[in-house]
């Protein structure tokens, strides 16, 4: 299947769900879900790339770390992000994301403060992998 994302309800915040054929694709889709809360992906051009790298053996902590590392890079560099690539080997995760600096043509959505451990689950659903958690907005 091609990767896809969705949302689930939470009283104060927003739940994000990424689905894909592999854990990497599911994580990429979860990142796309989170950044779509902040900006319409169609309005963001992929002209700058950020890179994140971390070590984490627990797949659920890895999802939270992946999302939070991306958030930190995006905020520090003033970027809206739209495309995500991730690979992992023996607990080492290496990812990239493309985007561009915020400008008046990108209509702001709602700022995400961080990915939380609430509703956190990474695991198989049918033939695919699903990665979900609540993000604090």
């Amino acid at each position, binding site marked *: 299947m091609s990767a896809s994302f969705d*949302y689930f309800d939470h009283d104060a915040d927003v739940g994000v769900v990424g689905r894909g054929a592999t854990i990497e694709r599911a994580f990429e889709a979860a990142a796309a879900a989170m950044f779509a809360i902040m900006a319409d992906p169609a309005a963001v051009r992929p002209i700058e790339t950020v890179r994140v790298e971390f070590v984490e053996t627990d797949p659920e902590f890895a999802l939270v770390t992946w999302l939070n590392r991306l958030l930190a890079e995006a905020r520090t560099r003033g970027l809206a992000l739209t495309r995500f690539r991730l690979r992992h080997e023996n607990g080492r995760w290496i990812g990239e994301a493309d985007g561009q600096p915020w*400008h008046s043509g990108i209509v702001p*959505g709602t700022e995400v403060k961080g990915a939380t451990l609430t509703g956190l689950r990474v695991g198989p659903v049918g033939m695919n992998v699903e990665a979900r958690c609540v993000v604090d907005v």
Partner: protein
Amino acid sequence: MDLSRFEPLDDFRWALAGGAGRAPVILYGDRELLAAMDDKVLEQIGNVARLPGLVGAAMTMPDAHWGYGFPIGGVAAFDAEQGGIVSAGGVGFDISCGIRCLRTGLTLDKLARKMKALADGLFVSIPAGLGREGHLHVDPQTLDRVLAGGAQWAVERGYGKPVDLEYIEDHGRADGADPTQVSAQAKARQLGEMGTLGSGNHYLEVQVVDRVLDAEAAAAFGIAEGDVLVSIHCGSRGLGHQIGTEYLVSLAKAAARLGIDLPDRELACAPIASPEGQAYLGAMRAGINCALANRQILAYLTRRTFGHFFPGADLETLFDVSHNTCKAEPHRVDGRERILHVHRKGATRAFGPGHPALPERYRAVGQPVIIGGSMGTGSYLLAGCAEGEARAFSSASHGAGRQMSRSAALRRWRGRQLIDELAERGILIRTESMRGAAEEAPGAYKDVHRVAEATEGAGLARRVAFLRPKICVKG
């Protein structure tokens, strides 16, 4: 929420006795508010009641709703001498998010003549929302001084007046901040974010005192019906968010290593006395100072803008309260004074009359408490009361509390339509985010009047005045 297992102590207090490794739970609020709460609130506060070293009961305020780890509106106190813990999930990501309230010295009739121009002026001068950095960029060395000095640093740099500090919790600076426990990434996120509002439920609101409910306290607070106030709701911005995210994972791992059996990983914690607990406290207090400095700078920007439209206007700080904190405070428990680490996650400190930490001006009536409501309904100013000390370690509600998820609000409302409807009611909204406006629709929040009444009925704080919104700048 099913209240069948709870014993009503009165109309506003509901108790669940402890047992099987769980301390008692007390829910504050009337039957209708509690019945409408998500069952997750009960599950989350029940988990808090199982944490080590809890003193008394785990509690929720009348505005409680489902959070992460602790519920929003959760209060719990821990004693370090009894193995008590400090929890990153008990503070939240937006460390020391809070409200700065300013008296403007203006009345509604004067505001009305320049309201639209003021709304536009504030929207330009207050950096709000995604993609907007602050006017003030600091270098890493300066940021370390911010993290150690809080609002005191900001005042020393000219962003305000020394008298402001008398009306900020802890005189504008949290003791024990340790900037060395804050990561380089967290600091990097903050270099361009000093003096920014953020988005989500953060706002700058110009309000009018609609009704005074307690004349004595209102006089002490220096307000009367028709007066114009400003409330600035925001927190520690990227730095606090980064501290929260990093310590949430590291303390969740530490808890397992330290033998703490967490009923929910999101309660990520460590014993207060442990190196891990002390590291988090040092970082979290640095986050508090970041938030206090941030609100001080925003107050400065607000004063400058008011001064442009109303020459000679003197905006005085009424009070500055934080509502995502863990603070070491003396409290009397069973006749003995103990230093407790009180977690208030979406809850406000509410010291009663006579408390020595209060400024002289408010000592006879109690600490100002602000229940921030939605942009279409209004907010309450309250005063801490004496019973609140024994009942909730001097804590009270912090807002109206959401009753509808953001996704549900987005399905139901359109931002532009809401803004137009509010304008017809004389409330000017300024935001670039239509999504944010829809998510923050007044109907997505609980009835603020009911929350304030329940807060008073529960003996946590008494109502002083109802504030009606006139201008709201949101990110």
